[in-house]
């Protein structure tokens, strides 16, 4: 991961200190060990806790945009009535069974868990900006979805100008920045 990928501190400034909560309060020792970099991640509201913890585990990011998190949480909660409860249940299962995020989907799929769709729903929201399935799908984010952010040092999301005419003829990582 490059320094350029580090995200800006979410909007939880001193004007609203009473609301400041951090992710560490929602994690156990096991899950905290998986995402030590995210312990200070702000959490906007208590009901967001499990969602934010799952988001940190699944996305594996140093920090997550709190404003986008709130929008995604609202969209997911509106789309899926049991979303908050399911998120709590999945986080509890990860804590209890010490499931590695890399094995999470196969574990849930193998067990035919009713929670199996949840990781993909959360990752689609963060990484594609999409919530919902089929005709009901809504776009909540695009240029700040994680799949754009992760490659932002090399690419612009389609429809955004890459740069001046011909700039694409140069090597993509001419400055020597190569995080892969």
């Amino acid at each position, binding site marked *: 991961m490059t320094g350029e990928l580090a995200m800006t501190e979410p909007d939880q400034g001193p004007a609203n200190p009473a609301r400041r909560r951090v992710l560490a309060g929602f994690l156990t020792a096991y899950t905290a060990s998986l995402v030590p970099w995210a312990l200070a991640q702000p959490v906007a509201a208590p009901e967001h806790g499990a969602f934010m913890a799952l988001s940190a585990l699944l996305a594996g990011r140093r920090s997550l945009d709190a404003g986008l998190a709130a929008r995604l949480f609202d969209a997911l909660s509106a789309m899926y009535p049991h979303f908050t409860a399911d998120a709590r249940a999945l986080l509890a299962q990860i804590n209890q069974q010490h499931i590695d995020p890399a094995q999470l989907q196969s574990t849930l799929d193998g067990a035919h868990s009713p929670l199996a769709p949840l990781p993909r729903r959360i*990752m689609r929201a963060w990484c594609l900006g999409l919530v919902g399935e089929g005709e009901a799908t809504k776009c909540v984010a695009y240029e700040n979805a994680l799949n754009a952010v992760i490659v932002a040092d090399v690419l612009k999301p389609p429809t955004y100008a890459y740069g001046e005419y011909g700039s694409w003829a140069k090597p993509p990582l001419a400055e020597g920045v190569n995080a892969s």
Partner: protein
Amino acid sequence: MSAPTSAEVVVIGSGICGSLAAWKLATRGKQVLILEAGPRIDRGRIVAAFRNSPRKSDWMSPYPFSAWAPQPEYKPKSNGYLVQAGPYPYPAEYIRVVGGTTWHWSALAWRLVPNDVRIKSLYGVGVDWPVTYDELDPWYQEAEEQLGVAGLPDTGSPRKHPFPLPPVAEPWAMQRIRERLAPTYTVVGNTVARNSRSYGGRPACVGNNSCQPICPVNAQYLGINAVEAAKAAGVKVVPNAVVYRIEHDAKGRITAVDYYDPDKTSHRVSGKQFILAANGIESPKLLLLSSSSKYPNGLANSSGMVGRNLMDHPSNSLTFYADEEMWLGRGPQSPDSINTLRDGAFRSQHAAYRLDFTNISQVLGVTEALIEEGVYGPAFDQQLRWRAARQLSVKTLLEVLPNPDNRITLSSDKDAMGIPKPEAHYSIDAYTRRGAQAAREDFAKIAALLGGTGLRYTPKGEFSNNQHITGTLGMGDDPTRFVTDRFGRAHDHENLFCCGTGVMPTSATMNSTLTGVALALRTADHMAPLKAQAASTDTTREAVSS
């Protein structure tokens, strides 16, 4: 203000071909009216609609759907407008709006190669065109100058004058592909209607990598630019005018067209000359719809060939990971090709093809794949970058031979206005399939030369479509075999002309728009010739180069 009820020339369809024919006729002093079934749209709103779309790989998704002027849509599910009679699907896409389908196109503005128009004589397949490549050269040149085509001098398609614009800067990924495949394959920059410098009042490309579905900055020539040129020359454009019938007199001359507005109020427009430019599906549909007691099989159809010989360019592809970072997605979407397989003695045995390298950002598809695979945690970040940097794709554009059984007919199913929907009858023959098999061997060589891993071929026998709708109004000298003559005039109606890719009697291997435009400009010249024809091309060149 009420819409005009008469014009010297009535053009049905405001796509790039109809609008440029209208533009030329207006510059010759003709009073021209364009009737467009769909609405006006705004570029900025299309860009916003794309960014907000939940289906970013569906390039139709940002475009509005109009119940009175339906267009085929297939995602998230088919709207059933283009009825599929089989045996193979023909899921063509087009946009019924002012400006037409080139609102989204790759802007590949290739000429044919000279032998493309003589495949019957040379290879014993298909048909010969009624015009030679050399005869088309001046109109190709004019089309290129109007569109602002950028290209290399050595593309394999001869020319008498240089391209109006220097080639567009080649993306880094394409440079590496070109270098790695040499000398086994010669990779060349595509000729494109994309500005490599300011031209025609439009800016140079800034690499938005969204040529399809929409160029946000107007660096790529679109049908709407043709509409604007036509309007500036005095052409009137009526949107939301759904032509449903073409009228004729006792001698077979076309006298008027009838159209519905969105409230299904009928309007009539009379004229002296008529251009049908509604694309290779809607145009034959309209001719078939306009049957009468004198023409029970539809207008222009004494040959029985209206709607037949439907062709396109089926594609199959190979996607793989190169052994070095390429990072597709920087610059325009379709920069380079291998075009040396467009012609050769093999055409007597199998389809010719062009191999097209995409430069579309791979981030979307890679993200979807990773989520599907359940790749979570820090591995997601690493895998997204690794795959997005290395994933490449090459596809074929295969020639399809004219086959009368491949056709557009009228469905018994009707649209919201009560107009029969078009119905596609389509198959892909052994000639094209053998071409696909030959290309598969090229795919393997290309992947090997690029250190390819994770090779994913299109399953054998499966093809995707390229929306290069050709053949349904084919031109030829024999009125018993062809719909239109060498100038696009309907053999059966002296004042009805067809413009668009539908008049192409064979599909060849190159994106068909430039050839369609060149033929449309030639048709317009035939309809309203200058006294000294030689002067016309030079005059036009001066006008558009400024």
